[in-house]
């Protein structure tokens, strides 16, 4: 009896927090859903009316949508590629004992603490600027034509900046995973005649697979909604070359004042994120079964 009562009390006590969190999530979602079926433009107040799926039609047939979708996937994929490979390499290096290890580890983690707007500005004005940037200076020193990063390679530049921010995260997770690898296994492989690369391929990589999955999952969630870096550096341009879904929705809502269209875009983004999440969860589940 006591346990039944305790359980009931526990539920009662928990309910305010749970209800608050639920409302916190469901109210904005419901309102977005509601707005997405309205003609709702901030320039024409008072003319809101139900228009069915027209907003969705416009958003999904907009040629910019497919470009933005492609850009989003490129951004996520490119960043994941750089951070996972770079993270593994950095983790392998940082796992070796060397002088000043503590300081170096701290410095490697540092970019993660810099907020996205600041790091994007630093990259834009101090590193990638075609006249004043460090990269331009290096190029000129060696007698090359400096690259105008945001004009010539806009999406790649954004990927570079975002990857720089997320590399520490990947490194940190992979380094801790690496440190939990049993030293005797490596020694056994050494005695079995496995060279450095075989040991990496047959022992280290499988050992890291779970950590890599976690890195991919968490980063994907955050990378789908990259915004500040684009706003600060390219404003989605040139043209729409660096516009991802998040930025496209922002343009609809706050540059074209089309709240209805933006809401429809938001719902589309939620659906897309869920599709991605579905595949990721399956990937994780497969990896955790081992």
């Amino acid at each position, binding site marked *: 009896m006591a346990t039944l009562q305790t359980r009931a009390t526990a539920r009662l006590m928990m309910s305010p927090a749970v209800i608050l969190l639920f409302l916190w999530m469901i109210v904005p979602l419901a309102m977005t859903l509601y707005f997405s079926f309205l003609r709702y433009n901030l320039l024409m107040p008072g003319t809101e009316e139900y228009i069915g799926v027209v907003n969705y039609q416009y958003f999904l047939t907009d040629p910019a949508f497919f470009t933005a979708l492609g850009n989003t996937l490129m951004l996520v994929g490119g960043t994941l590629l750089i951070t996972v490979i770079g993270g593994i390499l950095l983790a392998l290096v940082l796992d070796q004992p060397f002088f000043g290890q503590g300081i170096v580890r701290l410095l490697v983690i540092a970019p993660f603490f810099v907020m996205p707007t600041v790091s994007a500005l630093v990259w834009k004005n101090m590193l990638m600027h075609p006249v004043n940037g460090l990269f331009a200076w290096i190029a000129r020193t060696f007698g090359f034509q400096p690259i105008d990063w945001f004009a010539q390679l806009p999406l790649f530049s954004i990927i570079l900046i975002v990857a720089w921010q997320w590399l520490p995260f990947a490194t940190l997770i992979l380094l801790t995973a690496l440190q939990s690898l*049993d030293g*005797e*296994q490596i*020694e*056994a*492989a*050494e*005695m*079995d*005649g*496995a*060279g450095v690369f*075989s040991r990496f391929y*047959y*022992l280290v990589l*499988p*050992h890291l*697979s779970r950590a890599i999955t976690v890195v991919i999952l968490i980063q994907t969630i955050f990378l789908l909604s990259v915004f500040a870096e684009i706003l600060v550096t390219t404003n989605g341009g040139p043209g729409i070359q660096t516009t991802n879904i998040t930025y496209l929705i922002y343009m609809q809502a706050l540059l074209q004042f089309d709240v209805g269209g933006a809401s429809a875009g938001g719902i589309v983004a939620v659906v897309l994120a869920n599709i991605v999440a579905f595949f990721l969860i399956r990937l994780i589940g497969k990896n955790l079964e*081992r």
Partner: protein
Amino acid sequence: MGSITLEKVSKSFGTTTVIPEIDLEIDNGEFVVFVGPSGCGKSTLLRMIAGLEDLSAGRIVIDGKDMSNEAPAHRGLSMVFQSYALYPHMSVYQNIAFPLKMDGQDKATIDKKVRDAANILNLANYLDRRPGQLSGGQRQRVAIGRAIVRQPKAFLFDEPLSNLDAALRGNMRLEISDLHHQLQTTMIYVTHDQVEAMTMADKIVVLNAGRIEQVGSPLDLYRSPRNVFVAGFIGSPRMNLIEGPEAARHDAATLGVRPEHVKISTTEGAWKGTVGVSEHLGSDTFIHVQTESAGKITVRTDGDFTAEHGQPVYLTPDAPRMHRFGADGQAIQRT
């Protein structure tokens, strides 16, 4: 093929010397056990032979070739680790096949060798499982399987049975001894358990603080320990070591007599004492007696002997089987 010679091998980490110069000869086909208390350097010595630790000085010669600076894989030895060090994401088959695959052998040969090894070790039904799905004894066998497929010149075992329960340990001890008779390959086995050393070894190397105290066959060590350390370490229960006037009476600093070489009687004997704890094992009884002249003595007697706690008894040591040690701890030769 598998003789190993250590010549003036030593090892130090920074300023601490773990192993001062050691010379040791291991013949082909021998089962050699390194035994000693924990921290005596026996595992380090094994790892040096394996090539996992560098030598600070000296030479390791395997089959007449100087292997001191050779990589572990090129020494032709295989090792079974204390934690087994199986590859957790590979099946039993892949684990056993791994050294062959690294050696670049073709699939058919690998398959045959793996299945042969699995048959020897009773693993044929488990080849598709992962190490996580096996019991301790089975994992142990997989580790041994991975070692034997390479057909090494010698096997190195680093306390392989210490993670198993007592019954399984007894079984695996027999299996490893059996394996040695089947394969006739040199084996070096590290343990801190003197029972394992006594039961399995052709030759025991007793180590203490990195030094070799004595090398010999199990019965050699049992019958004529060269010093107090070996006397106290080999044999179970421990040899009684008597100091003081009773030892001086026999012209020794320390007098050693094994529990099985003391007669106990309720009526007459050399040392009078009272019974403390009696341990009844069924076949034997160990009786701890507090004597007046010789201190605490453990006696091994047959299982039928019963003694009350506090009962007065008399002990008589078997004089020809007593061991006398000088003040430096070395044995004094019988004249």
